[in-house]
């Protein structure tokens, strides 16, 4: 019952938040009176040509009217046309979203796989040498600029040692597209060659992206475990002679994860921010590269569309986190 209420109230908030986001981003994108029509028309266009283009693109109307049109179009999934790819921005984004999501998921799996176990070990062996080393590593993981790490890893593993592909998502054609997730598609079509290629291409970008997230998860998990390890139920379970492994990896961990799960939204933010620059370094054909290209081209509408899409993804992730939370911590439903 209550779970549905939580979901509904979140969904209700989604709409005003999104509208707010559109308005904010729209005005940000238009604070400076640049003249996109002139840019598009090119250096040699005559004033009349520019004027015609301006009217055609709707840049001659008042800003609020442009906003109204934009929102109306957005409601039908139309984000306008990219100035440079000349394709609908929504299509561009939809085409690139799976690449970014695949990278982000791979990174989050690595981050969880590293962060949670190491966080538990760090807490259980509190103040030991292992703990000290892990803490130094996790602070370092949060201090490294991900684009720099990406470049250095790429230089070593690809350029120097030739162990991993230099950039991109796949060499060759890749698997037949079903979902747009190459790993998933190659499994679905049982295309082992593509699977190997896709995984190999994923490796460096995903690891780079995962490191700061892993550090964050490690720190949360460590703090969470320390918070519960002295609680009465651990004392009780220990006094009742349950195996230490069971107590730590099942009973303590689930409690500790509550605080970690509530932070997955934040971790996802860390990942997505990282993805923008990491993609740029590895030429990963996802949203990040698209955003960077749009920046270089001063393509306002494309950036606007990108920002809104990221906002939607972000809000949905937080919604999922909230729902997940009600499952992992039954007390929230009380």
């Amino acid at each position, binding site marked *: 019952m209550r779970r549905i209420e939580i979901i509904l109230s979140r969904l209700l*908030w989604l709409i005003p*938040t*999104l509208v*707010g*986001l559109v308005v*904010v*981003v729209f005005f*940000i*994108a*238009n*604070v*400076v009176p*640049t003249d996109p029509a002139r840019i598009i028309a090119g250096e040699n266009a005559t004033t009349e040509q520019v004027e015609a283009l301006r009217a055609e693109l709707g840049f001659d109307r008042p800003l609020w009217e442009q906003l109204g049109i934009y929102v109306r179009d957005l409601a039908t999934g139309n984000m306008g046309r990219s100035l440079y790819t000349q394709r609908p921005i929504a299509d561009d984004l939809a085409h690139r979203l799976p690449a970014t999501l695949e990278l982000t998921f791979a990174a989050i799996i690595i981050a969880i796989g590293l962060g949670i176990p190491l966080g538990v070990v760090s807490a259980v062996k509190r103040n030991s040498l292992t703990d000290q080393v892990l*803490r130094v590593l996790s*602070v*370092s993981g*949060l*201090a*490294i*600029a*991900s*684009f*720099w*790490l990406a*470049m*250095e890893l790429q*230089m*070593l593993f690809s*350029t120097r040692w030739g162990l991993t592909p230099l950039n991109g998502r796949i060499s060759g054609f890749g698997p037949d597209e079903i979902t747009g997730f190459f790993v998933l598609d190659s499994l679905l079509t049982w295309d082992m060659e593509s699977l190997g290629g896709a995984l190999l291409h994923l490796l460096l970008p995903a690891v780079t992206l995962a490191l700061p997230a892993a550090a*964050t998860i490690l*720190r*949360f998990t*460590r*703090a969470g475990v*320390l*918070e519960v390890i002295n609680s009465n139920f651990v004392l009780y379970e220990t006094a009742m002679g349950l195996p230490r492994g069971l107590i730590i990896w099942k009973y303590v961990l689930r409690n500790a994860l509550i*605080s970690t799960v509530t932070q997955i939204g*934040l971790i996802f*933010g*860390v990942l*997505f*921010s990282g993805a*923008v*620059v990491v993609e*740029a370094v590895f030429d990963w054909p996802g949203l990040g590269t698209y*955003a*960077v290209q*749009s*920046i*270089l081209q*001063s393509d*306002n509408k494309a*950036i*606007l569309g*990108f*920002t809104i899409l*990221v*906002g939607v993804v*972000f*809000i949905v992730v937080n919604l999922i986190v909230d729902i997940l939370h009600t499952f992992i911590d039954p007390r929230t439903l009380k």
Partner: protein
Amino acid sequence: MTGLKRLLADRAAAIGAGLIAALVLVAILAPVLAPFPGDVSEFHLTERLLPPDATHLFGTDRMGSDLFSRILFGARITIAIAVIAVGVSVAIGVPIGLVAGYYGGWSGGLLMRASDIFLAVPQIVLAIAIAQTLGPSVENVILALSATYWPFWARLVYAETRAMKGQVFIEAAQALGASDFRVMVLHILPNIASAIIVRTSIGMGATILTAAALGFLGLGAPPPTPEWGRTISEAREFLPEAWWYAAAPGFAIFLVVMGFNLLGDGLRDILDPKIRRGAK
């Protein structure tokens, strides 16, 4: 002063404070310390991409400028961006959070919903959008970071203020007739200051990373500004041969961010045992 003592007793925090002190010193003394102070704008095409040696500690860049000197001057930009951007964010976010938390109600809720809008997108994404529109310059980077970072403080202060409001001493002050402004500034603010300070330290680190990323993407100061993020992106096409070119600014960023994070962790342990959670 026992606070300072305890801070320095914490090894990690002491290292952090040391790194930040070094950064500040380097930034101030850059013209004195730099062996080639002119190299911020001068170039020597005959000395392009020299590996590190006794003359050029960190080697030279694509223009033949001394990287060590440029890194030292880059510290100034880094500090300026971090201090101003975080300062402005605090100056905007704290009052908003304080007022929204203190008065609550639907107007407070609305303020928080407004900050939610900004938090609905990762900071760097909005900052990219803003910096892109305004054009590449240090000022615009600062503006973009401030405009996107204040909601973090608003959120934090809002939550802390709400928690404070129920406290007996706050109610006592209100009962004694203290004005709302007085209660907020003299009674609530000092009590949530430690949380703000901790966040500020960690926020500086995060801001430096975001600023560097903007620089890397070409949204920061235009060349020949010795901004660290931009330097790394310049170095890209000369890898792997000129490994030092990217290594020096990368390590500089790492050390400085590490300094703020370590200091933040230490401050958290000392000032606010309640917030033990460890994120950025």
